[in-house]
């Protein structure tokens, strides 16, 4: 009798497990921290994003801003004062109410270095997006609570794309009560985070996994989570992630190698998911190095290399050749730029005209790590060098450790270097200001000529203009000049490859890198 009872219990328990849906997500690393404004990597932000929400968010799979914790927003006529109207009746997972005070608390904590609730965090991503902390270049001057559900931001300069800025996944609104309890430990494995999102933080086992549970009291029935338990695991090697997916121990494998596309398609249990990429990989010239300051030399280099062939060879059919620095999935493109043709004969002529009929010696630096925009930096660099050798340019290939690489590229040490970008916030500004803004055009490209100042000026002007149509025109103009003067050569946009088990439905990756997972179902 007793034994029967035990068996019945076991069967019931199994049935219960079958009903409760668990989704295991395999990404390349576990989070570093879940305190989102201190998190600098997609793996941290993806996990935090399920728990904490931003004022403005994006329609899944796109870069179109839609209401998040704010239902609508408006700017003053000069774009210096932005007012956000907040969603009513929202509660944090700890039961405290979400309101204008909570929004102010969060932004003050990030913006003001004297704020007592910063803990030991540096909030570096805040400076990426807003330009610095309060008094040190931050575009946010102060935040005002107008009433319980209205909050107003006073900016130091006009910013036309402020809603896109606060939509960056760094700025998830945390529960003030939870932060105040222990600002130092907030976001670490020990205490986790508390937000308003469709998932609630459950546990984080160091080095092993993060477990989130469905929030049954979520305010928006349409965005209610489908799975009961969401587990994140960090699996560093793409081959291991694919192996785990095949073994069935994870249901979603993020960021696989392009060459695995065939293997995924060949397995009847798996589905390949290609994401629209917002990244760009490019080859830059530092004009402090002669003869790269010569326009004809730069044009020759652009024509000496068959860029399309490189994209075809190294991106596993997932990449596309870049013609501009703003990717096609984003607005603000010139749209009419014709890429340089592959024409080694013309390249030789140009070199001869520039006074280098027999070519010259230079260096190409490539990054030591694989990035989404350059999946195989070394072979790509080797191919570029081979093409250049055909027209007489002898390029030595060099690299150094990634941390050092990032420390050196803007010192003029690299005559030519490969680099790339994935955006912090989806606005052309985040690309063009980063590459060709007034400071970077000098330090990163070593260019102080008139046309460089003009380009930087156009981008600076577009940055502060509240008028979308004007901004579009300015960005198009700037990109045409960048192309004309070959400041750098855009190489490729890569579209990352992910894969799921066949029973996973509604998985929509985000071009921004960290996607919402509430809509995902496991059938």
């Amino acid at each position: 009798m007793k034994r029967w009872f035990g068996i019945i219990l076991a069967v019931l328990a199994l049935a219960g497990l079958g009903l409760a849906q668990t989704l295991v997500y395999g990404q390349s690393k576990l989070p570093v921290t879940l305190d989102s404004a201190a998190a600098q990597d997609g793996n941290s932000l993806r996990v935090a994003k399920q728990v904490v929400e931003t004022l403005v968010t994006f329609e899944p799979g796109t870069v179109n801003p839609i209401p998040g914790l704010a239902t609508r927003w408006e700017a003053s006529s000069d774009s210096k004062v932005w007012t956000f109207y907040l969603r009513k009746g929202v509660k944090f997972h700890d039961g405290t109410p979400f309101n204008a005070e909570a929004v102010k608390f969060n932004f003050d904590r990030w913006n003001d270095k004297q704020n007592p609730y910063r803990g030991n965090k540096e909030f570096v991503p805040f400076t990426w997006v807003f330009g610095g902390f309060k008094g040190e270049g931050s575009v946010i001057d102060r935040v005002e609570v107008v009433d319980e559900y209205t909050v107003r931001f006073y900016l130091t300069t006009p910013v036309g794309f402020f809603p896109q800025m606060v939509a960056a996944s760094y700025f998830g609104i945390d529960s003030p009560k939870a932060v105040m309890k222990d600002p130092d430990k907030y976001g670490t494995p020990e205490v986790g985070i508390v937000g308003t999102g469709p998932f609630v933080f459950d546990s984080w086992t160091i080095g092993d996994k993060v477990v989130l549970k469905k929030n049954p009291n979520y305010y928006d029935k349409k965005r209610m989570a489908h799975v009961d338990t969401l587990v994140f695991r960090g699996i560093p090697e793409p081959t291991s992630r694919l192996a785990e997916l095949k073994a069935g121990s994870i249901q979603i494998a993020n960021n696989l190698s392009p060459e695995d596309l065939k293997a995924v398609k060949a397995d009847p249990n798996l589905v390949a998911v290609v994401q629209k990429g917002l990244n760009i990989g490019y080859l830059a010239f530092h004009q402090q190095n002669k003869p790269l300051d010569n326009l004809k030399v730069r044009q020759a280099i652009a024509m000496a290399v068959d860029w399309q062939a490189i994209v075809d060879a190294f991106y596993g059919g997932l990449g596309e050749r870049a013609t501009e620095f703003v990717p096609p999935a984003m607005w603000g493109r010139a749209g009419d730029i014709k890429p340089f043709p592959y024409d080694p004969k013309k390249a030789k002529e140009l070199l001869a005209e520039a006074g280098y009929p027999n070519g010259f010696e230079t260096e190409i630096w490539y990054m030591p790590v694989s990035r989404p925009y350059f999946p195989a930096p070394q072979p790509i660099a080797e191919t570029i060098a081979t093409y250049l050798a055909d027209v007489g340019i002898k390029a030595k290939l060099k690299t150094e450790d990634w941390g050092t690489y990032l420390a050196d590229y803007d010192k003029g040490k690299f005559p030519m270097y490969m680099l790339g970008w994935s955006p912090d916030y989806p606005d052309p500004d985040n690309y063009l200001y980063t590459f060709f803004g007034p400071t970077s055009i000098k330090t990163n490209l070593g260019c102080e000529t008139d046309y460089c100042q003009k380009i930087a000026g156009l981008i600076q002007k577009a940055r502060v203009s509240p008028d979308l149509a004007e901004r579009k025109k300015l960005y198009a103009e700037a990109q045409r000049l960048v192309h004309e003067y070959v400041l750098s050569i855009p190489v490729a946009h890569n579209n990352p490859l992910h894969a799921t088990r066949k029973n996973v439905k509604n998985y929509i990756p985000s071009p921004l890198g960290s996607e919402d997972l509430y809509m995902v179902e496991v059938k």
Partner: protein
Amino acid sequence: MAAYAIRRFLGLIPVLFGVSLLVFTFVHLIPGDPARVMLGQRATPEALKRLREELNLDKPLFFNLAAYRKTGDPRRLFDSQYPAYLSRILRGDLGRSIFSKVSISEELRARFPATFELTLGAMVVALLVGIPAGILAAIRKNSLFDLLVMTGALVGVSMPIFWLGLLLIYVFAVNLHWLPPSGRLGIGVSFHPLTGLLVLDSLLERRPDVLADALRHLILPSLALGSIPAAVIARMMRSAMLEVLGQDYVRTARAKGLPERVVIWKHALKNAMLPVITIIGLWFGTLLTGAILTETIFNWPGIGKWLYEAIQARDYPIVQGGTLFIAGIYVVVNALVDLSYGLLDPRIQYR
């Protein structure tokens, strides 16, 4: 013996001090710093300077001559990074990760048991395979078995762990579905470990389901990690055994009519084990500290992978604290191996 042991352990203090100094110097000599890594491509010189100040990276490494000259106060000479670091360590504080802000002792507490368990697993594999194989190969010198063992040992030493690990995963996890591909416990298993050694904890908490699950997860990484020491131990065991078997006392034992079984397992083995013990001790230390590849492939939440990533990110406190901890373990294991000789071989006397 006791006096020797005390002296041996006191001798570790200057060693560890030297390690802390070396690690500190080398870590700071690597170009690039955490502020750079954090700010990445968007670093402006002003932002870098501010962040360095915030992270206390702007002070001199050893002696703050500038502050001393300015104030004339000799105490200000030590207002620099290494003295601050040393005094923190002496107070038992290893610091916090620059990026995650998690305290290093907390990370070590969570991760070291995982590495320790994997090392034990790998050593069990190495001993179970290496010692019998070495002995049998020595007894049947130049036989087909001997040839097989020695070839196997060569393959074992030269096979890259990375490749072997992936092979094991593809065969046993992906294709046969016999064993899990990675991790320490299944996702659905809820369990609160006491010590972090899951096999031990599951026994203590009487959870046979957890024990089975933990062991299943342990098999593949232990095989991969144990392959090299198994091969080394087999070769060492074979040559040590051959040497001992040629000695007079073995001949005497045989001459007095002892059965071969007793000659080998009782008389010869004990003496042949001495060099093998040294190797085992060294390998135990090495595995504890250097299982980066195995931990990465099998996604094992140990210290190897953690340290490797910290070096990439220039997370100074983790590299310094973690290395010091590992060096501590390594020298202690070596000291214990030294002391164990006396137990095995009474001729060795410690003074």
